[in-house]
């Protein structure tokens, strides 16, 4: 009989081959995307304001932006190259070989890809951005992510929870170590690795950290492999058992109530819970905020609510991993508009409850700042919020009320539209979002790059008004189609009118719009687009549910 001898090195080579074979396309695409995106954006910046990248504060800030995009983009492609760790459990090889071979591949990939991207941008913009320090940190970060993902649990929820906890702990530790956060410039830990070169001691730290991560990852993977790993859901189950439950729940009054309950319990709650988690992290760093930055800090945390909401909107609309209506969801004895309404209602409750959570957190932040004597003045806050005039206290309330109405309407509009587009399935949603984003960026950025300054002004005016007209026409067509298919009624139209009116009034109160078209057209455009989800959501269900 002919036996094939397989040693550790051979198995490691096979595992490395699996990593590259699965992920090389994604990694190349990620690299091309990062270089292309950064070149486009920074190209526009340097065209507009004649920037100098090398050795300037702005150059450092731009490097940080580029570095974040690189980490997300390349990190995602490496994450995809790992595949499912569970499939490796039955391989006849040690956990050390499995973990170490994949981790080495991931770290090398991350370092090389970052180095290539940074070198390309250095060549294009003469940026002089460092390679070794950020590259090694990026390699360590991906190893850390693998250690967490491969040792904590097999569920995405618990992996995300563990990553978030680690980030929060690291952030708090960083703040304690390096002092107050200054939003105007990047200081503290970034300077050590990023701008002062890599010394022998840094390399020693890198080697030790890598070995530590391989060790921890191997132990974690081995525990999961034999069914005795740290399972976060067990802790959640234990906590759930502590909560007393009523012996018998009452039945739902209507099918639509039951459907809303399901939507909320399955996805909707994520938005307020996510806001609370982010808010908890904000509360942790609040005591360290410098007085000079406290008004900026207020402005920044107000905007934070908006950013995760967009991402969460993508999650609220997803029906299944492949984006299609799964059998259970699709076979509910409800009309398409009833299903769409349940999804929108869940998104609406999510947005409003998040706003409530955020208001409580803002209050807590203000209290902490006041205790430390760092509370910004009303003038500073109103300046940060870009309210029209330096307010007297009597008017500030009304202006804030207008701003809140406008902001809530806008956030709801974006979240509901994202939700609705995803509800139509991955392909439709992706194509629509990429087209809108591509046209907007292409028209705005393309004119900056290609046209003379005199022609730019005319072109951008025409482009903006064409874009406004096209999106509004699209919006109207959506409502007409939904009406024709009997997916919406006159109540929906009334609701749409109400949303537009409240938002426009809010904008007027907050910013004092003038009769100049450049003042009110963009606002009116935003207000008119905000209720588009009321038509898009039922259309999306109609399209995706019966393919």
């Amino acid at each position, binding site marked *: 009989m002919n036996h094939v001898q397989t040693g550790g090195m051979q198995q490691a080579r096979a595992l490395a081959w699996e990593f590259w074979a699965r992920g090389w396309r994604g990694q190349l695409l990620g690299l091309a995307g990062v270089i292309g995106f950064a070149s486009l954006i920074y190209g526009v910046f340097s065209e507009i304001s004649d920037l100098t990248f090398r050795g300037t504060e702005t150059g450092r800030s731009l490097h940080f932006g580029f570095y974040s995009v690189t980490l997300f983009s390349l990190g995602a492609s490496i994450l995809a190259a790992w595949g499912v760790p569970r499939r490796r459990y039955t391989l006849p090889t040690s956990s050390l070989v499995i973990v170490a071979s994949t981790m080495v591949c991931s770290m090398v990939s991350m370092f090389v890809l970052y180095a290539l991207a940074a070198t390309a941008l250095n060549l294009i913009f003469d940026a002089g951005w460092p390679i070794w320090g950020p590259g090694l940190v990026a390699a360590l970060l991906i190893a850390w992510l693998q250690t967490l993902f491969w040792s904590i649990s097999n569920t995405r929820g618990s992996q995300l929870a563990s990553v978030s906890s680690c980030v929060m702990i690291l952030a708090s530790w960083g703040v304690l170590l390096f002092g107050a956060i200054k939003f105007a410039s990047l200081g503290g830990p970034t300077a050590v690795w990023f701008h002062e070169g890599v010394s022998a001691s840094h390399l020693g730290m890198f080697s030790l950290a890598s070995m530590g991560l391989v060790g921890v990852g191997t132990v974690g993977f081995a525990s999961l492999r034999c069914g005795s790993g740290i399972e976060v859901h067990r802790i959640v189950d234990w906590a759930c058992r502590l909560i007393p439950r009523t012996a018998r*729940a009452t*039945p*739902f*009054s*209507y*099918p639509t*109530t*039951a459907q809303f*309950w*399901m939507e909320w*319990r*399955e996805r909707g709650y994520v938005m307020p819970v996510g806001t609370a988690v982010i808010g908890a992290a904000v509360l942790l760093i609040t005591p360290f905020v410098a007085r000079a930055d406290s008004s900026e800090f207020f402005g920044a945390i107000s905007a934070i609510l908006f950013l995760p909401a967009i991402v969460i909107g993508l999650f609220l609309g997803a029906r299944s991993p492949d984006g299609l*209506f*799964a*059998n*259970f*969801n*699709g*076979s*509910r*004895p*409800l*009309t*398409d508009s*009833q299903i769409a309404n349940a999804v929108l209602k869940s998104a609406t409750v999510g947005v409003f409850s998040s706003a409530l959570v955020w208001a409580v957190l803002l209050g807590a932040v203000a209290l902490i700042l006041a205790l430390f004597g760092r509370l910004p003045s009303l003038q500073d806050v109103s300046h940060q919020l870009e309210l029209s005039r330096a307010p007297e206290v009597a008017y500030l309330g009304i202006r804030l009320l207008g701003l809140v109405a406008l902001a809530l309407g806008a956030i709801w509009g974006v979240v509901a539209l994202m939700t609705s587009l995803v509800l139509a399935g991955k392909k439709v949603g992706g194509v629509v979002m990429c087209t809108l984003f591509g046209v907007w960026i292409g028209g705005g950025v393309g004119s900056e790059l290609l046209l003379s300054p005199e022609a730019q002004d005319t072109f951008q005016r025409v482009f903006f008004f064409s874009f406004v007209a096209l999106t509004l026409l699209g919006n109207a067509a959506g409502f007409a189609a939904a009406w024709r298919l009997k997916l919406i009624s006159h109540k929906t139209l009334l609701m749409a009118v109400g949303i537009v009116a409240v938002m426009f009034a809010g904008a007027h109160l907050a910013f004092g719009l003038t009769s100049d078209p450049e003042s009110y057209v963009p606002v009116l455009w935003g207000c008119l687009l905000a209720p588009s989800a009321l038509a898009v959501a039922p259309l999306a269900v109609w399209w995706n*549910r*019966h*393919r």
Partner: protein
Amino acid sequence: MSETVVEFDRLSRSFGAKRALNEVTLRVERGSVFGLVGENGAGKTTLIRHAIGLLKAKQGSVRVFQLDPVRHPKEVLGRIGYLSEDRDLPDWMTVAQLMRYNQAFYRGWDEAFAEQLREQFELDPKQQVKKLSRGQRARAGLLIALAHRPELLILDEPSSGLDPVVRRDILSAIIRTVADEGRTVLFSSHLLEEVERVADQVAMIHSGRVGLNGPLPEILQEHKRLVLRFGEPQLAEPNLPGAISCQGTGREWTVLCNGGVEELRVAASKCGAEIVDEGTPTLDEIFLARAGSQTDRQGAS
């Protein structure tokens, strides 16, 4: 004249280059137990997804209770109990929550019956769906499909994941009870013994086409299995007109035919063979013979 509950009329469907259904015409009558049989990928699930409106008829038409399930999802689905092949249920719900949630959608939800089924299926109401075994998940799916006593019960591969005892004793009993109450069952399966045990009507689907369709007793009676003994060993498959399949080696060959026994008897005697045994084939044998002959025909064309 009996009422048609589900009607597929010249229904065709393609997914990219693959033709999943090709001019399928079928009628399911009220009170019948209709079995769809076919190999994996034959088009059974695609057909069922058309019946519940999760796929829109691009060519041909689908009517359920005389209604288009895409245009009237609420009216149609409210009268259907459906168990999907993938046992797709919300993982985060407990069994009790799943029952309570489903109760809201169906006017005919029978709480006592639901509780009886839950006990019969040995499901813990506090257990989360994601922690149920594959068999328990199938039973939970069956529970919510049955508890509102639907006019039409659609089961896509109901045996999948069920152990033999549940499959034989419970599933068969349920299907027969539903039919005895005058309600209709449409189910797909590739376990032909099971279909033979419970179905009144059978449609055999192969590569998106209906190969055979009719009442089960008629199908069984129409087909004959003959064992032929030749005078000389046959090196190749004998060419016998009327035979759907011919299997064997040397002198003895088993032939399956659909009617035309006399014609085959004459042809056999011309080849120097005699019929040594004659019997009724099982549905399994008929299916294998027909699926094989269709594949041969497709290969030849």
